[in-house]
């Protein structure tokens, strides 16, 4: 096991050329999440469309963030994966990613679901970095729950 298993080409690409970066309008909820152990932080906005009855769709996600390559790349990959999806589908991806990050490098992720996010399997071997990879996802989850349930969780 070498560090190359963590710093996959895909991750470095997203890090150097992040997608959906920069805060955008419109949005319903903005959250700020912090990784207290290292000072990484993200401010993230979500814009949802729909209603509780019809179901919700993730219309847009944008963010401003500071942090290491893993947390930056993860935000970029996350935004790619959830934007345009129905909430249920996006949540399923979130949950798959969570499972992947808890796998200690043992998972065989489904590329059809996780797409570029499969590159993070190497990160899951490094407990101290798992939090970096999860930061943006947690922020998204928090913001989306607030936006669709109408109240902070």
């Amino acid at each position: 096991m070498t560090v190359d298993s963590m710093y996959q080409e895909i991750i470095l690409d997203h890090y150097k050329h992040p997608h959906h970066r920069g805060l955008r309008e419109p949005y319903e909820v903005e959250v700020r999440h912090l990784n207290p152990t290292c000072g990484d932080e993200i401010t993230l906005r979500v814009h949802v469309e729909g209603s509780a009855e019809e179901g919700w769709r993730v219309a847009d996600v944008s963010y401003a963030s500071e942090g290491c390559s893993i947390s930056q790349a993860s935000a970029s990959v996350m935004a790619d994966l959830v934007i345009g999806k129905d909430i249920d589908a996006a949540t399923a991806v979130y949950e798959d990613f969570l499972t992947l990050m808890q796998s200690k490098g043992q998972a065989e992720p489904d590329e059809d679901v996780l797409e570029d996010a499969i590159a993070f399997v190497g990160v899951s071997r490094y407990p101290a970095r798992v939090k970096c990879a999860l930061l943006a996802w947690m922020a998204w989850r928090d913001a989306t729950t607030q936006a669709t349930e109408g109240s902070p969780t």
Partner: protein
Amino acid sequence: MTYDVARIRKDFPILDREVRPGVPLVYLDNAATSQKPHAVLDAMRDYYEQSNANVHRGIHTLAEEATALYEGARDKVARFINAPDPREVIFTKNSSEALNLLAHTLPFGPGDEIVVTEMEHHSNLVPWQLACARTGATLRWVGLTDEGRLNLADLDRVITARTKVVAFVHQSNLLGTVNPVDVVAAKARSVGAYVVLDASQSVPHMGIDVQALDVDAVAFTGHKMCGPTGIGVLWGRFDLLDELPPFLGGGEMIDEVTMAGSTWAQLPHKYEAGTPPIAEAVGLGAAVDYLTELGMPAIRAHEHDLTVYALERLQDVEGLRIIGPTTADDRGGAISFALAGIHPHDVGQLLDEVGVAVRVGHHCARPACLRYGVPATTRASVHLYSSRTDIDALVEGLTHVRAFFSS
């Protein structure tokens, strides 16, 4: 597999020692502290020689190893007491700190009452006395029967709608008494009080199941359960610990810090300010493995047998009066006694002469000593590696003591 004491004793290097040339150690001071098996000492040494680093926030190899070992120890302790969630296990420096933490953070104030018992160790009495002085709450207590048991008739009188916390000992270090946790906890629950259990003497000798006990918080201490000094455990229900305020402030227990103010980390870190007892946690984890391998039911059965034997033999010693239950029912293997006309100091000193290590004094349970009219007692206490030979040496030693002072 039978419980093979001779084989078990080989795991404890100190049991081979002579206190003086030709005088082998007979260690019967286990209620004060236990001895440590090789496995525990090796685990700590390996930690220091291979993986020593500060835990959390490190991303280098040693820091990751140290963190995994430290958190792995927490998982082991959680499993050992059947905690539903390892985040409910807080590492403290000893039982006393765990109990002080609760006395500082549980909510109560003027007009409220805290209930303890007359058989508490000072560590589960003084923190509540101090808390009452700080907050204006009032301390009340359940008395004892002449037989050395809780006076359960007191419960309805003492535990009332004003009671906010009932804190009591599971197994008394002075009397050996094992208290009926269910009865006391049910009464406490009926008035909505928090239930705190001092399990310092029960975890090492019979184990506990925090879910079966149905209490809110439990304190115990590493050094009495074959683990190292410098570490104790607070277990508390997740929801409770989660809502209580922090106690000690410092590194690790924070979420976000600015000069103007701070927010707190999630459990368990909220209650672990500063560098924790890392090697000690590793040692405690190894101790828990050791105890689990022998099996707490087997340990308990062995100690029960020894207690039956010891009570029987001691009561044959002329002039010896047991302070505490005289039968082994609902009782552990810490046996306090008085020897007519001979002060415990002199008993202990002369027993040491023949290698028998017992404790003398009030055993940090002075109110109970006063209750039984003895300023001090002599206490012999067994552990998983104790044997009938140890009890025989004690009884023989007591004959020597009596002879010395009657001459």
